[in-house]
């Protein structure tokens, strides 16, 4: 189980400081949900964690600064699934999931039988075995989301960074994907960082939450500490009522003005 620490992270995009002074920790095997309004910098934060953006400050996994690692070593620690993944329409599901083995395949070499076995078993776990030879262009939105997750899981990295894993999914598929991530986390001890737009959903799955606003951390703590009527009203400009649901987890209801 890998522990993620972020110290004084700052990201400048173009001439704009999108994030500054971000500090947080995610314990090994924990689930952190990052929330915030559109354009708050959630995706930017995840991209910086994955090492895809120039940034200042430190990101450490199990105490090792990611800066010191080569890209391939980093890719064995962190798997990242973007908000809007590019899925080549004519690539098969199996070949796409197999790309997750890239950090283990020699630069100009080809995959080993072991890489294929890992890929096949991940597809089986995600109920995708029957899709293995289908083209990505011929999948529904929910199937695609699962395939992207499969690609991230074949990476066998202890930390999963998922940017909006439930966008464009219907209710059933949202639940399906999040349950899946949760069970994988419990089974394999994965540390999970997700951004999520549905606050109640985020509150139900995450161990801890972080609210990003104004280029930094506006609040962090347990879901009950972050999902308050006052904080949501201020940072999302929304009128909500927060009720306490099952197991003390907060539920956020929109109120009509």
């Amino acid at each position, binding site marked *: 189980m890998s522990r993620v620490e972020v110290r004084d992270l700052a990201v400048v995009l173009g001439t704009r400081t999108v994030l500054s002074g971000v500090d947080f920790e995610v314990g090994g095997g924990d689930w952190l949900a990052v929330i915030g309004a559109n354009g708050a910098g959630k995706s930017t934060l995840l991209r910086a964690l*994955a*090492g*895809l953006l120039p940034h200042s400050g430190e990101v450490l996994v199990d105490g090792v600064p990611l800066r010191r690692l*080569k*890209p*391939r*070593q*980093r*890719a064995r620690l*962190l798997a*990242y*699934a*973007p908000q809007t*993944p*590019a899925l*080549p*329409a*004519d*690539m098969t599901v*199996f*070949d796409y999931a197999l*790309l*997750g083995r*890239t*950090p283990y395949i020699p*630069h*100009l070499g080809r*995959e*080993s*039988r*072991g*890489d*294929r*076995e*890992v890929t*096949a*078993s991940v*597809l*089986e*776990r*995600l*109920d995708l075995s029957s899709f*293995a*030879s289908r083209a990505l262009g011929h999948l529904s939105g929910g199937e695609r989301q699962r395939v992207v997750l499969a*690609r991230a899981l074949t*990476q*066998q990295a202890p930390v999963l960074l998922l940017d909006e894993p439930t966008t464009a999914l219907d*209710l059933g598929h*949202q*639940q*399906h994907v999040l*349950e*899946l991530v949760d*069970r994988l986390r419990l*089974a*394999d001890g994965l540390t999970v960082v997700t951004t999520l737009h549905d606050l*109640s959903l985020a509150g139900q799955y995450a161990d801890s939450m972080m609210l990003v606003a104004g280029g930094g951390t506006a609040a962090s703590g347990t879901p009950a500490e972050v999902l308050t009527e006052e904080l949501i009203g201020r940072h999302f400009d929304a009128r909500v009522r927060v009720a306490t*649901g*099952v197991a003390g*987890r907060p539920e956020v209801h929109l109120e009509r003005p």
Partner: protein
Amino acid sequence: MTRLSRPSAPSGDKDAPVGGEIVPPGGRSVAARRAPRRAAGLGLAPASAACFFLLASMLAALLAGAADMAPGKVALQLLDWLPFVSLDSGLAPVERALLFELRLPRVLLAAIVGGLLACAGAGYQGVFRNPLADPYLLGAAAGAGLTTTAAIVFMKGDGSALVVPVAAFAGAVGGVLLAYALGNVAGRGGGTATLVLAGVAVTSFLSAVQTFLQQLNVEELQRIYSWILGNVGGGWDQVWLVAPYALVSVVVLLLYGRLLDVLSVGDDEAASLGLDVARVRLVVLLAASLATASAVAVSGLIGFVGIVVPHVVRRLAGGSYRVVLPISLVGGGAFLVLADLIARTVIAPAELPIGVVTAFVGAPFFVAVLRLTRRVDT
């Protein structure tokens, strides 16, 4: 508002296998035994079909031609040249020389040039993630056009046979490097969009200079045009000239097939998989440009092969670059051998420029492809 509530405990539904451990490499599982064995490997059926197509078209191109030789005798003669075979073909020594010095190198050169252009086209398409990219996208054609025009104009017909190929090669490489430098200056970070724009700018600038030079020397127009429209009749000299560059660029391109597949999922995802995106892009661009420049040096500016062939391959054999690159190499060779066969037989004893033939086949095809991809894109 609809509310999702969290199932209290993992129920024993169809997602149950999720709890299982991922098998470590080496361990076997049911899933592993069911893994598609050649999912990312070279499709054997398309590969052998392409090889068959190449051999058949080369054979046809060797048997037929302007000179009136009986195909049967030519076939016997070809067999005679195979090691350990000795036959009497009945061809006159002059005919034999013609077959060996003209037809054979011409067929080989067509195969090499076609393979290079198709492979380079596939490489460019991978780098730019655009199936409509072609080997001339970054100014290779305009650069070669300019330097070759200059060579023809200033040498006035004297100078060795090497002048044109060397000038064309240098111009093609120079055009690409110019576009690459400009693209990097304009859009730091090496994004592909600025690179394409830089290619457009370099192409129109160099073409303008070339047109100007050409207008000042109207008497050389014929030679300039016949070079531009392409010709693979350069003989053994040109085959040996192009061979080493062809070999190097093709080997590099074939080695990078898998990395082009990784690149196809987007810069961010590729980088998150540990890939040095900028470096892969640069190496493939260099290799594809080397292939283009060497093809251009010995054959002129033959169009459409670089787009048409990878496209057909993609439709028939799937989109993985590990398949598209090698099959385009073979299929491109076959396509150009056939195009050249048409070029030199249709109005024999006169010849059509080979670029006219490829464009004649390629242009309608291009329109059809555009229509098909539009349906997929939107």
